[in-house]
């Protein structure tokens, strides 16, 4: 938080538009900060000289709560962090605790988990595309994206009853057997998703104004990206070909063919292209997965009361925003001694200042959009 609760514009220094800088406050209530993020911009005319992100408005103390809940009880809290990709949060946590227990989810559970996580990745990227295009002024894509996302949320609702914070997985496997229409629904969604995504591409990819607004904006070089610990599409757009699903396969990713899109210059346009490709790859994974969902049990024998032997584990998955990691320390009781979440949005947002410096005010909005942050995960 800041030192003095300054009202919106009270500290507009000296002349209104004189030579020296003015401080412009964006947020915490601002149409395009994707949540309660406040950005303090020091402007010289239209150009950003310095920026400081002030976060913490949505801090709920999730890690403190984890120390007062049993492992199963904490699972729903995990969905509330990155509420746009709740299923992948759940997958990360469940797999981390399974590793802590030394248990392994049965193959059927692993395949269903992969399908739902890839659908969630498409949904998260769709929401990103819609709001990002809206910030830059294209009014139409947001409605197309939400129409597609609605299909995915319907599948989630049919499977586990919830659309957003799904709590779809349990430690050790799955709670519910898949409803019999799952393969058909996913097949139908994937089939008509191909020409839907072509629709977005025709609308934006060669659009001169879109290219003008995104090319060369918010450039992040590969070296800076690695140094700043940035992961996910932002890192891949800067030219680093690294994806946890390939590097350290988890769930059932080892059995499927998909490739990792990367680009070179690491500007907003490249991140847009990388995420669009990623949606196509996720769709490809889903199609391969629903071919043969192995039969068999959906829950490993982990018993009702979980008492993992003392020790610690770090397990991370490739969430839509980047590497989502869980560092869990157990002291042998039913409640975790310490749960630390490695939030991709929080660390990616740190790269904002390097990207925004030297750009124009209008680009700040595009840069916040391109990092694709969710404040629930940034603040935890």
């Amino acid at each position, binding site marked *: 938080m800041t030192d003095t609760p300054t009202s919106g514009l009270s500290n507009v220094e000296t002349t209104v538009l004189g030579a020296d800088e003015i401080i412009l406050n964006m947020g915490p209530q601002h149409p*395009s900060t994707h949540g309660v993020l406040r950005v303090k911009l020091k402007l010289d005319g239209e150009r950003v000289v310095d920026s400081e992100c002030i976060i913490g408005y949505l801090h709920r103390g999730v890690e403190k709560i984890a120390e007062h809940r049993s492992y199963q009880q904490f699972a729903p809290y995990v969905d509330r962090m990155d509420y746009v990709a709740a299923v992948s949060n759940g997958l990360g946590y469940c797999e981390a605790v399974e590793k802590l227990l030394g248990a392994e989810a049965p193959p059927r559970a692993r395949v269903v988990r992969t399908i739902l996580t890839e659908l969630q990745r498409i949904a998260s990227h769709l929401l990103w595309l819609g709001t990002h295009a809206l910030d830059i002024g294209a*009014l*139409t894509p947001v409605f197309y994206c939400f129409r597609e996302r609605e299909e995915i949320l319907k599948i989630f609702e049919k499977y586990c009853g919830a659309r957003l914070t799904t709590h779809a997985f349990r430690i050790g496997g799955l709670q519910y057997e898949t409803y019999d229409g799952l393969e058909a629904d996913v097949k139908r969604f994937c089939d008509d998703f191909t020409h839907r995504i072509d629709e977005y591409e025709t609308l934006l990819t060669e659009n001169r104004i879109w290219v003008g*607004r995104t090319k060369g904006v918010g450039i992040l070089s590969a070296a800076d990206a690695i140094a700043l610990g940035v992961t996910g599409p932002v890192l891949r757009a800067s030219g680093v070909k690294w994806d946890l699903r390939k590097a350290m396969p988890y769930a059932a990713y080892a059995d499927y063919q998909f490739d990792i899109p990367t680009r070179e210059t690491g500007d907003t346009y490249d991140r847009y292209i990388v995420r669009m490709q990623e949606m196509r790859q996720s769709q490809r994974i889903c199609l391969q997965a629903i071919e043969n969902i192995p039969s068999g049990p959906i829950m490993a024998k982990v018993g009702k009361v979980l008492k993992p032997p003392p020790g610690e584990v770090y397990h991370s998955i490739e969430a839509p925003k980047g590497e989502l990691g869980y560092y869990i320390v157990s002291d042998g009781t039913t409640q975790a001694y310490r749960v630390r979440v490695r939030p991709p949005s929080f660390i990616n947002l740190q790269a904002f200042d390097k990207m925004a410096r*030297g750009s*124009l005010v*209008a680009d700040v*909005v595009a840069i916040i959009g391109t990092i694709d942050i969710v404040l629930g995960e940034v603040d935890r």
Partner: protein
Amino acid sequence: MGHLIPPSILPYVLPVIYGVVIVAVLPLMAGYIVLLERKVMADMQARLGPMRVGPHGLLQPIADAVKLLLKEDIIPEKADKLMFWIAPLVSVTMALVAYSAMPFGPAFQIADLNVGLLFILAVSSLGIYGIVLGGWASNSHYSLLGALRSAAQLVSYETAAGLGLVSALLLAGSLSLKEIVQAQYDQGEWFVFSVPIGFFIYLVGSIAETNRAPFDLPEAESELVAGYMTEYSGFRWSLYFLAEYANMIIVAGIATTLFLGGWLRPFPHFSDHLPGTSVEIMDGLPAMVFLGVALYCFWLAPKQPVKIQKIVMATVGGLCIALAGTMVAALFGPEGVRLGVYGGFWFMVKVMGYLYAFLWVRFTFPRYRFDQLMRLGWRFLIPLALVNLIAVATAKVASQEWGWYPRITMILATIFTLGVALWLASRDAKQEPAVEAAGGD
């Protein structure tokens, strides 16, 4: 109706009546253009748009108007009261004054100035004051930035749009709007076909002049909240809104008059008659259009869920049939009435077509950044407009003095200008990264 009023004061009374009609109809028309915009936007975004107020949202504009009237009218505490009150008035009056020279039909024109076009340009350029003073008076940082940006944008795009118009003027040879349409009738060809580049420059310039997307920087929601309109609310805000839509209709009217042949029928010289009557086939078209709409309304009426909506839809259907009837009656009526009614119809159809292009552009393109907008204006549009002017002038001289065939010279001029346009675009494309690297101008 001329004989009712003593002829001596007729030239004074008629314009007043026309004026009252325009000022009365305009807010209604602006309201329904807003509805049209929301419906078209919804259609392009796979949704339905306003459906709740009246059948298919037909009464939505009235609801909006009432809401705006009832809204609390907040004046910022340290605002410059006089300027804050005057600014929206300046905007609306300038927008309405510009209608005085607009030829809605051969007969329906308030004042046929022989500098008609320049007068409209002059008055719409005064509209900037409404924005600039409004931004300054509301004493808030955001609105000042928005006002300065929109002033810079308007001033620079006015030149581009003006030069685009001049190329059409070259062919018409007169500034009076009625004579321009007459010239298009005599030459038997709309100017949009002879000077297409002038038309497109004017199209882009006019979108920028009325602060419409993709040039709607001044009220770009994401950065400057609502630009110069941030501090306005209630009826004062709706004045700005009315001014924006009135400006849109003016700009569409100018484009129709200059490039799309004003009140001329699509094929004015094609005049073979319906067998056995003095009616030209093309004139039957409007009546058919209204009949089609009426049938569609009657087909929809029983489908409406609520009884009241059935009645309203039926009345709308009835209204269309009545309109079709008047069109047919006008066919057999006196010459003046027929010209007036048909001229008005075709003028409105073209204006609506032009506005549809505005709406279409708004929903497909993202927003320009301010420096890109300025670069497009000064580095691409204005030079292109100048080159186009020179090309059309030489083409005209070539066809008149050296006797070349006019159509050929026009096509040559267009091709030449297109070549220059491509060169300019490639220069800008090469230029762009360099400018970015140099930290921009």
